[in-house]
């Protein structure tokens, strides 16, 4: 069974779909870190919130409405978090940041429990994407293909914005050397705020997209956090290329590992992470040389 093409296509698509979901999450986190050296462990909680927002809004105004509302709702929360906590913790060093955002994880975990209850919510797949499509002789759910396409599209847009526009050049300059960028007249703080909001919105979008795939539970943010961190550490903090490369590596290793060596799937990925940390401590594609 493992020899035929169908198996590889099917698992390849599964890997790609997982990769794209992780990419949506890790890209915001990695650019926030690259630009401002800020470690936001609560990124996973924002993703969970996006899933809840999409499931709730989706029940009232349909899936597409939910998909649109979730990023804005999460970005709005991001603004609040930024004003209350993050702006003050910017210069506090990694340990203090890890601790404050770890505290935020706990707070948001229980807040979602209070608002939505501990029961898992389910979000339906929209009618338009409910069917299956045949690719290379393999039937594959249309919704999962939509996730892959959306991830690729976001990647394309971000690559275009970061690589070809003035704001992208400013962000790259900020990642490279923020004090120098500030000397050149770039308002690094404002840029960080913008990037932070976009990162939050992407986390919300990832949550909204994931809602029909997984069940929506309060601890879904905790579950996705570790894979996201692995992705950005493997890829290298701060770079778009690192985020996409890390996501693809994680998706492939996790998916194929789970099928081919079910006993060692997770150990494989952590072993890979340890190897990267030992051989290339800054990740495969760090933002700075």
């Amino acid at each position, binding site marked *: 069974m493992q020899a035929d093409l169908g198996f590889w296509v099917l698992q390849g698509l599964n890997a790609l779909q997982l990769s794209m979901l992780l990419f949506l999450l890790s890209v915001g986190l990695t650019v926030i*870190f690259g630009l401002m*050296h800020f*470690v936001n462990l609560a990124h996973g909680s924002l993703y969970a919130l996006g899933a809840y927002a999409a499931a709730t809004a989706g029940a009232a105004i349909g899936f597409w409405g939910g998909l649109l509302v979730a990023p804005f709702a999460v970005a709005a929360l991001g603004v609040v978090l930024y004003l209350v*906590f993050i702006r*003050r*913790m910017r*210069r*506090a*060093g*990694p*340990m*203090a940041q*890890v*601790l*404050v955002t*770890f*505290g*935020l*994880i*706990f*707070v948001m*975990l*229980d*807040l979602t*429990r*209070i608002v939505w209850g501990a029961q898992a919510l389910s979000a339906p797949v929209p009618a338009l994407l409910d069917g299956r499509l045949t690719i290379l002789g393999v039937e594959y759910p249309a919704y999962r293909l939509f996730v892959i396409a959306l991830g690729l599209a976001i990647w394309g847009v971000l690559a275009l914005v970061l690589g070809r526009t003035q704001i992208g050049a400013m962000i790259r300059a900020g990642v490279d050397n923020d004090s120098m960028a500030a000397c050149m007249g770039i308002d690094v703080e404002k840029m960080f705020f913008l990037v932070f909001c976009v990162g939050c919105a992407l986390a919300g979008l990832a949550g909204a997209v994931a809602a029909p795939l997984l069940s929506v539970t309060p601890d879904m943010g*905790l579950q996705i956090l*570790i894979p996201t*961190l*692995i992705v950005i*550490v493997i890829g290298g*903090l701060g770079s778009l290329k690192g985020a996409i490369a890390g996501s693809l590596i994680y998706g492939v290793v996790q998916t194929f590992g789970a099928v081919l060596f079910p*006993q*060692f*799937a*997770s*150990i494989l990925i*952590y*072993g890979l*992470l*340890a190897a990267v*940390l*030992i051989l290339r*401590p*800054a990740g495969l594609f760090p933002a*700075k040389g």
Partner: protein
Amino acid sequence: MFRHTSLRFWALGLIAAAAVLRALTAEYFGVEMVAEIAILAILVIALDMVAGFGGMVSLCHGALMGAGAYAYAMLTVKVGLAPSAAFAGAIAITGAASWLIGAVCGRSHGIYFIMATLAFGQMGYSLVFEQPVFGGDDGVSGVPRIDLSLIGLDLNDPRTFAFACLFVLGLVYWFATHVLQAGLGRTLTGIMHNEQRMRALGVNVWRIKADMFGLSGMIAAAAGALAAQHVMFVSPGLLNWTVSGEALVVVILGGLGTIIGPVIGAIAFVMLKHEVSAHTDYWHLVVGLILIAVVMSRANGIFGWLEQRLSRARPSSARDVIAHQVRKDLAAQGALEDA
């Protein structure tokens, strides 16, 4: 470097007296709580040794404790070793593993160190979770307590067990403070302050870090082996990274780099947990808010705040300078990393 100030002596004496009194007089539930606090205190002393005196903020100490618990459970239940031999074996195995982790992670700093330790901790978690030998999700049950009938003690009695935990805690406190005052601890603190300079002085930096991490892991394993005996059961949840995060919370709550502070943090944490859990299901909300408040207040936890208040009249004392330096160094390390 660790110093025994008079305030620390007083705090230590007060805690010891309160703990013994409580273990002697309390009902069943109170005695169980003493054991729980003592075990947590052992774990956070281990974490403070590396985080407070070496700047090595580890997110794998929960996993190290879990490793100690599993090693003890496996050696007694599956291998059939005598519990006391298994206790020593668990400490040795976990110490060796954590020496290796320290040797590998010691090369990285700041956020990379945090991530690297997190990765190793999660590796242990999935190892235990996925390998059928370890019982998977069900864990290992029927873990025996050490048999001390030779000296006339029965550890299956909750009060005796609580005293045994307190005894180990005292031993660990003595051991940790001595290691920190010895050459190893002083060198480690030197590395935390200026790694470049220590290297220039001819210090083998990674070796010092690995040695201290190994010792810290041995202490964490002792906490784990006690925890396994306490509930007579181990499950993969012990190794989850949130346990490591909670241990870090306790250290911060009590006061980083003070050893006695984390012990106070453990007392406050366990008592608060029972108190809050009695009133509401949302214990995490409370602990999250407290953590955020403590970190953002910039005081060095309960004990750090106390020391600062009491030493305000005197010219800035060495420990304030250290606490201040830890923060500065951690920030500078982060900045250096990225430069």
